């Protein structure tokens, strides 16, 4: 069974496309698309437009004039093309590797009976909670050719002239970036995989498909919106990531686009906004091309995988592959989480980063006794929690509105949500700042909590959107329509049916957004002047002053806070899933029926 057959198969449980369109045309909610699209453009496109305009102005502030100089300088500079090629090649390889690993682990954790699968979410939470700066530093220490722990371990057993592992290399950069990307991809895919109904797979098996063929030709294709969206987001996030390439790439002579943007913005001759904006246009163009490609590939196919006929979330029995799967979990946990987190914790206990003695809790005592840092913990938690909640809510409303009807507003909504992802944090922050300064009523809000939260929400919208997007594509409108027919009003149907079914994805999206906002730096540095510094700003201060061990201690405490919030979110998600199961009908325990090695299921 291929993807097209799936399209025809998913009709049961949903109403026909024609009658659906007719009904939707009568649906008053359809009229909401244009206002939502306009709001989306205003919110998400305006800062990007400011950056585009900034590429053609001598200064984005008052007193500038129009010019093509920056565009000409950037696009005739060979370094631009070298950095573009370097960035693209590393990004593609990194994302391909990490997506395969992420799909493997999300499948293990949601669809199999692999031992240790319960550890996967916690392990991924550790990976996501590790800030990229420290992930890069940790791996720079672990994978150092002369003194890295890994090489010291390997050379105990095998004789090498120099350490065989070198984190400061092309493949080192790819491997470390891929290890970290898996965590994000896992959480972004989790909701869609959890919402996946196994009825399709069973139908494929009844049609004679092997278990492996059923997985690759039925399960994965219907998850295309989620997988495609996450792949594109991962590519874009890598294209604009700065910390890990700067730490592991530059020693190997690798310079990526964000490094060049950083160079322009911090030039010794003063910030060159126009050149940085011009360079950012490359990122925006690549992102628009990728989103267009995704639209073309998805076409008009349906990806509904949830029906109103009851849940079917049985697991596969891996049989003799159970323990190899568990070993894969252990190995990934070791390299992606345990080793770098250990390095971070060791660093936080050291008198200085790299010390081999004199460990103590002095750095933690210093953090805990610092009133400003402790205040920043609370402030960061509030700003991140509120920002993440707003981002998920806005994404949900926008993507739901986009789903109502095809046409221009749908394209606008979809594309608008992607745009902020194309800009490195500081460039996006500048775009928001210029946008506020352009409009007199907003000028007075610069530097206030409003502008800070506004910018942070915009920065995380692409991430929240991907967490919501895959799941919303899987929920048929027929469920809401059935609710209307039963007398429920539209709002009740939306919040009571769609939102409840999507609750795992919404919580995952909130959690991921919360984690990212807790550690985001560029925007708070620019816009938190009157709110007091967020935690990341204190970390930046300590790090730039050479107090790496103090910065590590702050991050260890932040990770503990994030893990506590993660645990809370998981509890909420489990409770909501139970409600969801009740809502959709009693879950069928598949156990033996789900055994892919069982002849009876063929």
């Amino acid at each position: 069974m291929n993807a097209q057959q799936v399209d025809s198969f998913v009709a049961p449980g949903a109403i026909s496309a024609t009658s659906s369109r007719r009904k939707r045309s009568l649906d008053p909610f359809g009229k909401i698309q244009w206002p939502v699209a306009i709001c989306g453009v205003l919110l998400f496109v305006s800062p990007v437009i400011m950056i585009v305009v900034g590429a053609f102005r001598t200064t984005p502030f008052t007193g500038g004039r129009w010019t093509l100089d920056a565009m000409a300088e950037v696009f005739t500079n060979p370094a631009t093309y070298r950095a573009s090629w370097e960035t693209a090649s590393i990004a593609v390889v990194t994302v391909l590797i990490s997506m395969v690993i992420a799909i493997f682990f999300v499948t293990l954790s949601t669809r199999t009976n692999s031992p240790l699968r319960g550890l996967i979410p916690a392990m991924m939470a550790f990976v996501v909670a590790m800030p990229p700066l420290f992930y890069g530093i940790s791996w720079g220490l672990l994978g150092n050719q002369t003194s890295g722990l890994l090489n010291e371990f390997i050379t105990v057993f095998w004789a090498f002239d120099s350490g065989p592992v070198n984190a400061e290399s092309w493949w080192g950069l790819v491997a470390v970036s891929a290890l970290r990307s898996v965590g994000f991809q896992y959480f972004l895919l989790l909701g869609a995989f959890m919402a996946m109904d196994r009825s399709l797979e069973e139908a494929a098996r009844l049609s004679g498909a092997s278990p492996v063929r059923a997985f690759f030709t039925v399960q994965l294709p219907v998850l295309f919106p989620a997988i495609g969206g996450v792949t594109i987001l991962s590519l874009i996030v890598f294209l604009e990531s700065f910390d890990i390439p700067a730490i592991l790439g530059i020693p190997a002579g690798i310079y990526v686009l964000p490094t060049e943007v950083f160079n322009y913005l911090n030039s010794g001759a003063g910030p060159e906004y126009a050149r940085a904006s011009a360079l950012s246009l490359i990122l925006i163009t690549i992102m628009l091309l990728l989103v267009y490609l995704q639209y073309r590939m998805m076409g008009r196919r349906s990806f509904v995988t949830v029906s109103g006929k009851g849940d079917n979330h049985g697991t596969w029995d891996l049989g003799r592959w159970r323990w190899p799967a568990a070993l894969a979990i252990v190995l990934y946990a070791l390299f992606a989480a345990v080793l770098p987190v250990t390095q971070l914790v060791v660093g936080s206990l050291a008198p200085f980063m790299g010390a081999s003695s004199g460990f103590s809790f002095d750095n933690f005592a210093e953090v805990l006794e610092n009133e400003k840092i402790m205040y920043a913990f609370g402030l960061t938690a509030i700003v991140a929690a509120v920002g993440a909640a707003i981002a998920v809510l806005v994404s949900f409303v926008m993507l739901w509105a986009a789903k109502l009807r095809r046409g221009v507003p749908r394209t606008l909504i979809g594309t608008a949500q992607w745009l902020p992802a194309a800009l490195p944090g500081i460039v996006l922050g500048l775009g928001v700042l210029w946008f506020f300064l352009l409009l007199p009523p907003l000028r007075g809000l610069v530097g206030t909590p409003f502008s800070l939260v506004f910018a942070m929400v915009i920065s995380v919208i692409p991430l929240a959107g991907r967490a919501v997007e895959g799941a919303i594509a899987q929920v048929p409108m027929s469920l809401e329509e059935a609710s209307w027919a039963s007398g429920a009003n539209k709002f009740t149907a939306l919040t009571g049916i769609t939102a409840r079914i999507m609750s795992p994805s919404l919580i995952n999206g909130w959690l991921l957004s919360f984690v990212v906002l807790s550690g985001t730096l560029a925007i708070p540095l620019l816009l938190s002047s009157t709110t007091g510094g967020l935690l990341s700003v204190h970390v930046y201060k300590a790090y730039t002053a050479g107090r790496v061990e103090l910065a590590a201690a702050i991050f260890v405490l932040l990770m503990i806070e994030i893990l506590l919030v993660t645990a809370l979110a998981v509890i909420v998600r489990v409770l909501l899933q139970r409600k969801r199961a009740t809502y959709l009908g009693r879950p069928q325990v598949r156990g033996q029926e789900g055994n892919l090695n069982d002849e009876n299921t063929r």
Partner: protein
Amino acid sequence: MRTHGKRASLLSRLGCAVVAAAALAACGSDRPAGGGQLDRAALGVTDATFADLKKLYRAALDEGGELVFYGTNHEVLAPVYEKFEKNFPGIKIETHQQTGAQQMASLQADRASGNHVADILQSPNALRYVNAGFAQPYEPPTFRDVKGIDGKVRDGLHDRQFRYSTPLFALFGIGVNTELINPAEVPRNWQDFADGKWAGKVLLHDPTVPGGGQGILTRLLLSNTVDEAWLAGIAHNSTLKGDYATAVQSLVRGEYPILLAAAGADLERSAGQGAPVKFLLMDKDNIGLADKWMLLDGAPHPQTAKLFLNYLYIDLGQQAIADIGNLPISGNARSPHNWPTFTDAKLADLPPEAEITAQNDRVVAILTRIFRRGS
């Protein structure tokens, strides 16, 4: 223990309050309105200066006792700030750490929105902010009282309108790992590091990206201390790090014995924490980055800012600067690290800051051609 500590602290504060009340009764005129007590002996200033500071202090308390800084290196300078807060009770300093585009954008946004946040900007690149009109002229009276520098040198520490002035220099030299190399074997002139025998032994913060490595090599080149052939030698001998902090870590961990263009304050602090590192100055042509301070136009607490700027130039402030491993301009301040005084530091003869800025693109192009091998 902590409870006991708090109790003890409370008792000591009560004691201080009683003593302060008694002192107030005895010489009420020394206590400015709004609370707080200035200790002339601790400040170590003349009667005339004390009177000026007292007047500013009173005005500062009337402004609310807040002071907000923009700029860089606030963590390094924290002990200097703490000493100010201790000696001028009732005033609290808030810092915002920003550089480059972020710093410029914040200042532009403050001006455009009318919401001025900061009072003082501290930056080695102050000239660009001065030229953009963010500074207001102010000559701290204590600047003229600084001992141990001649008039010509002093005049080079500010612009004509006193839109900025320079209380300190950040010294850059050589960092060595003492477990890997004997400091006595390390050359004390820049030229020797281009010799092939140092290949693979030298670390450097990538000079093709903005930061300490680029700033120091730019100044060495523009002061004619070194030439392009020397740069090529360094490019051959050195391992580049994309981030200054990781370069220091590599030195501390013993991955390489030598770090070129290391900041003295960073190395001294690491050594103080037990790291096997030592900071070395050259016999001549040392690089000192002038740390410029300016009173911002539209500062919400201008009198408090003026008080602080004056504090930087009295002996108390200058000694605080020396204690953290920077180079104060006063000949009276003694370095606990046995560094020479400002006049004896044999700093390289640098061109004016405006010329360094104007030459930036050209120098970065040279550095990129030489250090990005294959580019």
